């Protein structure tokens, strides 16, 4: 087995107190029970335990045979709390029915915990196999020792170690005491199960939290409680960078239940994950705090972003995208070819700001503890719906002036995240309030707070130009993107899309064209810019795959065949020559394989009976697009039906996904279904606008979501059976959806959508 990530050697001894067993399988244990053990873990990992055998951070076996797997990535709906432990259990030879899941605290020793970037399986598939194989090898050695036989004659299966040459067998629990005395084998001596013997990897299982979710017992960030906590609702500056000028809290303090009104200072410099500042109302219930917040009279100094109006800004972006920009990737001489061409075509595309709008808004409860003798902060305990507990430790540590290791973070379930909950400004707010009030404070963001103070997906413009040859194919291709960069959230001076952003559907252009110039144009940011599921693929793949479809129609060619021609021969793109970072993944394990991209395109065309589309009546149409994103490959075909009055229906979506090795096939299908639906919301309705620096949308009535009635009716999913290294899934299903949808609308109505959202356009036809 190849190791794709830097795996620390498993710790030789590990405290059970750092890894205390959850009380019941699949339940998320919070506060008391969990915190006691994990608190110890923060300071003393090597402390030995008298009972359990725990050869690795991620797995422990109790004398009764119970296997506990540590889930260190956050569960926000992908099924990762089920997926990674299934890998451990498989390699260990455990009985899944006897496996319990413990959610990890934020702890650097566990490796990356930023549950983001569709990285969890890619980063930790091999690591989980190492954890499982380490424990299994030691259990086999323990049995061999007890029986006085060679270890190679012992093997683990269904929670027992068996002897090949006799009928002897011992349960895992019976081997714990002996296994604990053995040295942990080095990784080089581990043997891994061949793929043919996998029992759980690649097989479906219910998610571990299913019972708790359907009975309402599941604990999310909004449900997290600490003894004696207050509930806070915060009035934040309506414009980013604004400050409180004057506040009158007299009326707020009269609301029954309101305990305290507290000012939170604004941030200086780049926003980072700092609190936005404002005025917090702390009360004995969420509603009292909310009422109190509404009763505040605040005069704001709106600060430097008070002139931000997206109606104007969108025009600036288009201008920026039309001007020569910074060239990030060039092949041939695009400028000359375009200048000399007699057959040129160009188009501009745009996508508005978008908001994450997770069903559960951001919520956290914090308890800052102070040494009574000297008034110094000793520790902060946080329960939060966070995608990244280590970022919480870092941001809260910085805000309180304590070491990261003194911030104990327990992770609840997340009522979805989409990237919003990897930005822990709300945890910082809770910590600052707890410090000031000297008791635990739970911060709840209302939906209005969520939509008006997000780290927004950037508003964008893209300009594309092609010089077209006599066969209707582009011989030169110019592509320029302008949008406020995510980097500006961390460095206020950044005002041009970063290479890593451009690589999501722009500079990684997979087409075989002799002259290409892929450029970025400048754009200042006036709000906090953040990453939203699929990130820059949202605007970049939309523009690129729409433009390809436009060229196909200009050439009077079948868009599917035209795409295949654009993609060119099967090959591995030369990523180094193109100066592409490939998400940090090696080209050996994760080549940009044009053959795989064409494969998903062909498969989805076949599944959707693409060639039969000519028989569709006017008002019905199919669109096609493909993408490589987050190292996975997708092809989408969307079928639309547009009524004469312009009402849009989506009767069918077909997706073909190649994400390499799959751990939980059902969860992968669920992610791809969900991605199509989320992408439908964004393409049809997604638009956050700003007037004088303030977001105009306030709730789900003005920031509309796809619901049951307007969701695609049938989503047909094809997952390619592959032994390639596991790629991304969660975000991968988004990139090629919106262009396929808009290409279908063109096929059905002749109307080309270049500016999202679709809802802004009249689709009626006669």
């Amino acid at each position, binding site marked *: 087995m190849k190791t794709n990530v830097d795996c620390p050697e498993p710790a030789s001894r590990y405290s059970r107190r750092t890894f205390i067993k959850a009380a019941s399988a699949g339940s998320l244990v919070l506060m008391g029970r969990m915190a006691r053990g994990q608190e110890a873990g923060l300071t003393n990992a090597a402390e030995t335990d008298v009972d359990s055998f725990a050869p690795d951070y991620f797995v422990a076996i109790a004398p009764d045979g119970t296997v506990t797997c540590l889930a260190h990535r956050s569960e926000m709906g992908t099924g990762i709390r089920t997926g990674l432990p299934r890998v451990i259990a498989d390699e260990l030879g455990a009985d899944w029915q006897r496996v319990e899941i413990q959610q990890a605290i934020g702890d650097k020793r566990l490796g990356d915990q930023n549950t983001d970037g569709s990285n969890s399986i890619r980063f930790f598939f091999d690591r989980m196999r190492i954890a499982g194989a380490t424990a299994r090898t030691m259990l086999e050695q323990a049995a061999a020792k007890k029986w006085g036989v060679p270890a190679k004659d012992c093997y683990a299966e269904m929670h027992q170690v068996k002897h090949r040459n006799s009928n002897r067998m011992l349960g895992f629990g019976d081997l714990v005491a002996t296994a604990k005395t053995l040295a942990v084998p080095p990784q080089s001596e581990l043997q891994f199960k061949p793929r043919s013997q996998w029992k759980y990897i690649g097989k479906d299982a219910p998610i571990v939290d299913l019972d708790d979710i359907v009975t309402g017992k599941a604990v999310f960030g909004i449900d997290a409680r600490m003894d004696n906590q207050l509930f806070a609702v915060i009035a934040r500056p309506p414009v980013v960078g604004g400050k409180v000028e004057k506040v009158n809290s007299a009326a707020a303090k009269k609301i029954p239940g309101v305990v305290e009104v507290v000012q939170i200072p604004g941030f200086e410099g780049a926003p980072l994950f700092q609190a936005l500042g404002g005025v917090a109302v702390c009360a004995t219930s969420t*509603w009292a705090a909310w009422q109190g917040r509404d009763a505040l009279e605040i005069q704001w100094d709106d600060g430097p972003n008070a002139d931000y109006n997206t109606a104007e800004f969108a025009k600036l972006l288009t201008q920026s995208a039309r001007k020569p920009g910074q060239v990030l990737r060039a092949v041939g001489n695009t400028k000359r070819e375009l200048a000399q061409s007699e057959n040129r075509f160009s188009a501009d595309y745009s996508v508005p700001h978008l908001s994450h709008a997770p069903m559960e808004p951001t919520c956290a409860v914090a308890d800052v503890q102070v040494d009574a003798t000297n008034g110094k902060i000793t520790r902060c305990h946080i329960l939060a719906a966070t995608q990244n507990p280590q970022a919480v430790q870092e941001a809260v540590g910085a805000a309180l002036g304590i070491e990261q290791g003194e911030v104990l973070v327990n992770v609840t379930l997340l009522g*979805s995240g989409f990237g919003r909950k990897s930005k822990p400004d709300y945890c910082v707010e809770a910590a600052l309030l707890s410090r000031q009030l000297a008791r635990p404070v739970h911060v709840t963001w209302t939906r209005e707070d969520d939509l008006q103070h997000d780290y927004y997906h950037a508003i964008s413009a893209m300009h594309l130009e092609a010089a077209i040859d006599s066969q209707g194919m582009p011989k030169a291709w110019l592509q320029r993107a302008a949008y406020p960069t995510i980097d500006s959230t961390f460095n206020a001076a950044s005002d041009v899309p970063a290479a890593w952003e451009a690589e999501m559907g722009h500079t990684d252009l997979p087409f075989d064209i002799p002259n290409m110039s892929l450029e970025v144009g400048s754009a200042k940011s006036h709000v906090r810019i953040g990453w939203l599921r699929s990130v820059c693929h949202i605007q970049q793949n939309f523009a690129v795959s729409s433009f390809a479809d436009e060229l196909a129609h200009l050439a009077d060619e079948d868009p599917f065949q035209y795409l295949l021609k654009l993609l060119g021969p099967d090959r591995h793109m030369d990523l180094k020559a193109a100066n592409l970072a490939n998400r940090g993944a090696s080209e050996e394990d994760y080549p940009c394989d044009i053959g795989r991209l064409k494969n998903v395109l062909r498969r989805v065309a076949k599944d959707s009976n693409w060639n039969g589309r000519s028989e569709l009546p006017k008002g019905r149409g199919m669109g096609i697009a493909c993408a490589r994103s987050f190292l996975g490959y997708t092809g989408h075909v969307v079928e639309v039906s547009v009524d004469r009055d312009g009402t849009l229906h989506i009767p069918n979506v077909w997706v073909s996904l190649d994400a390499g090795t799959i751990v939980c096939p*059902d969860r992968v299908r669920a992610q791809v279904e969900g991605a199509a639906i989320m992408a439908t919301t964004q393409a049809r309705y997604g638009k956050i606008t700003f007037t004088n620096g303030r977001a105009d949308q306030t709730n789900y009535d003005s920031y509309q979501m796809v619901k049951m009635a307007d*969701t695609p009716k049938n989503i047909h999913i094809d997952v390619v059976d592959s032994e390639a290294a596991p790629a991304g899934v969660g975000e991968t299903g988004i990139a090629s959806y919106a262009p396929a949808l808009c290409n279908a609308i063109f096929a059905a109505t002749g109307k080309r959508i270049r500016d999202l959202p679709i809802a802004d356009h009249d689709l009626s036809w006669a």
Partner: protein
Amino acid sequence: MTAIRVNGKTHELQDVSEETPLLWVLRDHLGLTGTKYGCGISECGACTVHVDGQAVQSCVTLLSEIGDSEVTTIEGLSEDGSHPVQKAWKELNVPQCGYCQVGQLMMAAAMLKSTPNPSDDDIDAEMWNICRCGTYPRIRAAIKAAAKEMNQ
């Protein structure tokens, strides 16, 4: 002091304003956190509970409006997760993040009482809850599976 009937029990509430939305009474005063906040304006359905058997959005229903009515939350829908909608949800592995699912389940359970054999159009009309993860196709399938079981 106000009394409220929830899941078959009478709870006495002290120092709770009559104008408090039922959602926050359930969550913050009674500790029944299964019912979720999503929007506060009856737009997403995450807070759906039953009042005398009818689906009601608890975020816009004031305590004063409840009176003697019987409130049922997810904690009282069944004793052990065995309501046909809960079983169907599990059978089809419906939830992703799970946050909106309580509201979806309560809405579906109420609908199946009045519409035991819902058509696709019925489901489109009645199930207006928001799910950001995009579990709608599975919810539709699970409602049909639950209806089938209930009609047996």
